């Protein structure tokens, strides 16, 4: 543990001596905020079940490099027509944007994301990279925007800090698909913070995949502010990530705002994944939905901490939360903390959580119809997980993820 904090200290002192770095004082302030807790321990309520921090504590050295590695960007492209952003090893590499109304720029200003989470403070102190994306008023972007996020095999850094910003002005629409590509087998720690601002009537559909990441420790943080009648849809496809924590903080600040979060997870070996979602209903007539489906093999571990907070003025709130897990091995673990904190009386809030094994009766039914055990199990797990894909409202992407699920070998 001391090793990691001295490694971070070392990185920070070399960072602030760099002449290109701006806002040094603000960074120092944020860094001191981080130092108050350091890498949080399991004793903190919010990090109670976290495996990520254990993995971070195993780092003895961290390096930050500004070198741009060579990578063939033409590979791995999707065959449907889309706009592209390329991120390579934590640096905005290239962008190919043709749609009107979309404006992209290199993120280079220090913009603090106010949060007490020590890892967000750490990100505020270090982040020098990322992109800023703005959708101009009344533009409904037709083509999806795909963000290719490469972690290459020649990655020079082991400590990566991104900070992205997405602003959707009034009456806009955008579909973003984040395709994380891991070519790297060495250990690194990536801290990624995204700030999303949805103005009145804006609609953002945010999909992402997270596959075959064998060695990294990832921390992803989303902060989303929603205005009047805006809509945020989030879907994350997680298949074998070594160690990852996804935190999403949603603020429903305008009436009729709606946020829908969904996760599909397949984990095996010793992999672990945590989701910590907080939804703050701050205005009347706001709606939210949280939906998780998880299949756990081997000695994998999944954690879900979801919270619905309803302010006393947020009457007519509708909050929904469901997390379900299949435990497919004796060593797999599922931990959930579905929380409600409600201060308004005219609300409809419910949460459900279940975990268990494959239903023996259903398995028997399938086998009695001549399907062998392996296929029967596969069918049931796929059916179970596919429900999460149904939460996607964009038909093309729904199909894309269904195909992905069908082709997956992880059963």
């Amino acid at each position, binding site marked *: 543990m001391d090793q990691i904090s001295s490694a971070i200290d070392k990185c920070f002192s070399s960072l602030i001596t760099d002449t290109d770095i701006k806002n040094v004082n603000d960074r120092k302030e944020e860094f001191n905020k981080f130092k108050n807790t350091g890498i949080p321990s399991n004793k903190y309520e919010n990090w109670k079940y976290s495996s990520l921090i254990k993995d971070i504590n195993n780092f003895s050295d961290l390096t930050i490099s500004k070198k741009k590695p060579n990578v063939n960007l033409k590979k791995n492209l999707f065959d449907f027509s889309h706009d592209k952003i390329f991120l390579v090893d934590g640096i905005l590499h290239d962008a190919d944007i043709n749609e009107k109304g979309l404006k992209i720029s290199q993120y280079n200003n220090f913009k603090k994301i106010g949060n007490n989470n020590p890892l967000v403070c750490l990100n505020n102190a270090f982040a020098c990279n990322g992109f800023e994306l703005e959708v101009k008023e009344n533009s409904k972007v037709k083509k999806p925007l795909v963000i290719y996020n490469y972690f290459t095999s020649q990655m020079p850094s082991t400590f990566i800090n991104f900070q992205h910003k997405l602003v959707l002005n009034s009456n806009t629409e955008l579909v973003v698909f984040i395709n994380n590509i891991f070519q790297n087998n060495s250990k690194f720690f990536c801290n990624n913070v995204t700030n999303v601002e949805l103005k009145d009537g804006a609609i953002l559909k945010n999909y992402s995949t997270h596959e075959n990441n064998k060695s990294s420790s990832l921390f992803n943080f989303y902060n989303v502010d929603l205005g009047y009648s805006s809509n945020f849809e989030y879907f994350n496809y997680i298949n074998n990530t070594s160690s990852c924590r996804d935190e999403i903080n949603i603020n429903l600040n305008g009436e009729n705002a709606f946020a829908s979060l969904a996760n599909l997870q397949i984990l095996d070996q010793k992999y672990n994944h945590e989701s910590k979602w907080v939804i703050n209903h701050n205005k009347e007539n706001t709606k939210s939905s949280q939906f998780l489906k998880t299949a756990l093999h081997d000695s994998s571990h999944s954690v879900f901490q979801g919270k619905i907070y309803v302010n006393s003025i947020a009457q007519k709130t509708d909050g929904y939360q469901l997390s379900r897990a299949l435990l497919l091995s*004796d060593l797999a673990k599922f931990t959930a903390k579905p929380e*409600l904190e*409600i*201060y308004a009386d005219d609300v409809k809030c419910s949460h459900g959580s279940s975990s*268990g094994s494959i239903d023996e009766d259903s398995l028997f039914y399938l086998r009695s119809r001549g399907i062998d055990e392996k296929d029967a199990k596969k069918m049931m797990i796929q059916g179970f997980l596919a429900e999460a894909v149904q939460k996607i409202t964009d038909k093309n992407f729904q199909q894309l993820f269904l195909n992905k699920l069908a082709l997956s070998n992880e059963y």
Partner: protein
Amino acid sequence: MTKSEDLIKKYKENSEYTHGFVTDIETIEVPKGLSEQTIKFISKQKQEPEWMLAWRLKAYERLKKMKEPNWQKPKYPKIDYQDLYYYSAPKSLKDQPKSLDEIDPEIRKTYEKLGIPLEEQKRLSGVAVDAVFDSVSVATTFKDELKKIGVIFCSISEAIKEHPELVKKYLGSVIPLTDHYFATLNSAVFTDGSFVYIPPGVRCPMELSTYFRINASNTGQFERTLIIADKGSYVSYLEGCTAPMRDENQLHAANVELVALDDAEIKYSTVQNWYPGDKEGNGGIYNFVTKRGACRGKNSKISWTQVETGSAITWKYPSCILQGDNSQGEFYSVAITNNYQKADTGTKMIHLGKNTKSKIISKGISAGNADNTYRGLVSIHPKAKGAKNFTQCDSLLVGNKCGAHTIPYIENKNSTSDIEHEATTSKISDDQLFYCRQRGLNQEEAVSLIVNGFCKEVLQQLPMEFAVEAQKLVGISLEGSVG
């Protein structure tokens, strides 16, 4: 005044905290403060054997190194443990009464006011009562009859003297000395409580009951209850509590330990009606209680039922450790908070044995400026094959200044287990109210009826004698919260 207004007035008069009287009797108290002296004094007063004192001092040593927890939702001002009295007993008890008739008439009157079946009523209701007044067990009724079938039902101080082998074996075996702050505090300074032992194969023929009352001001009440159900036995135990109205907050930190051996069943019911403080939130009891049951034997069962209507702050989690194969744990709870009351309550179900089952039904109701939190843990360990859990926690909000919170922790480490959790939050709908009012019920009656319906699943679990009282309490506690 119209007839209905008259009725409301009458209803209101009846429904104030009616147990808020102080009994004027002489008490002996130890000098203030928590120290080795105090503990030695308590032990001496109770003529305890050496080993008991050593046990208490060990707890005290441990306590010195511990910190008060502060993760709970309802925060409270710091308690000055040196400003508390740890022992208070009615003086006339010094020369122990031999029978009920010898009891101080003042104390008897107190119990009559409370409506506890101590004398004539005892035959009618068939309840055996162990009444604890401040810190000392006053009288245990029906003792002889229970003795005939081998049931031991007495105060814990008596048990320490007369059944040391049982007490030594089980005391602290469910809630160890080294548990959390308040449990350890209790282990050091506990003054009295009940002790129950049901011998193998005996089905206790009547409901056993304890009645707690905090009378002296500035005292903490630290009672300790130990119930052991030997192989194949059954017992149902009731607990009720009240306290006089006082401006300052009083601490109540009890420990309750249950042990169920093979095929045994324990049913533990609580109706908690400590003084909740006035309408502005002054005074009231801090109810920081540790209750834990261990299903040690195969096929054993422990069932907790609680109706929590009183106390300024309720902070407790009656739990079950399901060690034996096929053992079962149940938790039924109604927690009602009104005005400035706060509750943080729930349960822990720890599944260790094979095919263990647990069921949690929790109903939280908050009104006024109250805060009501359900916090629970369901933990299935790797060896608990075929374990099952079902949890349902519903909250009802009356008014928009109160809060209802649900914080369940679910840990599943076994693939053959099933865990289900459900929670909803709602309010009393206008349709329901309209329907009731249309049929001639006034607003308060309608609310009381709807709330009683909401809690029905839990109230049904209470033994008859308590069910009626609990229903009334539910109505009274919400008094003044609507309209």
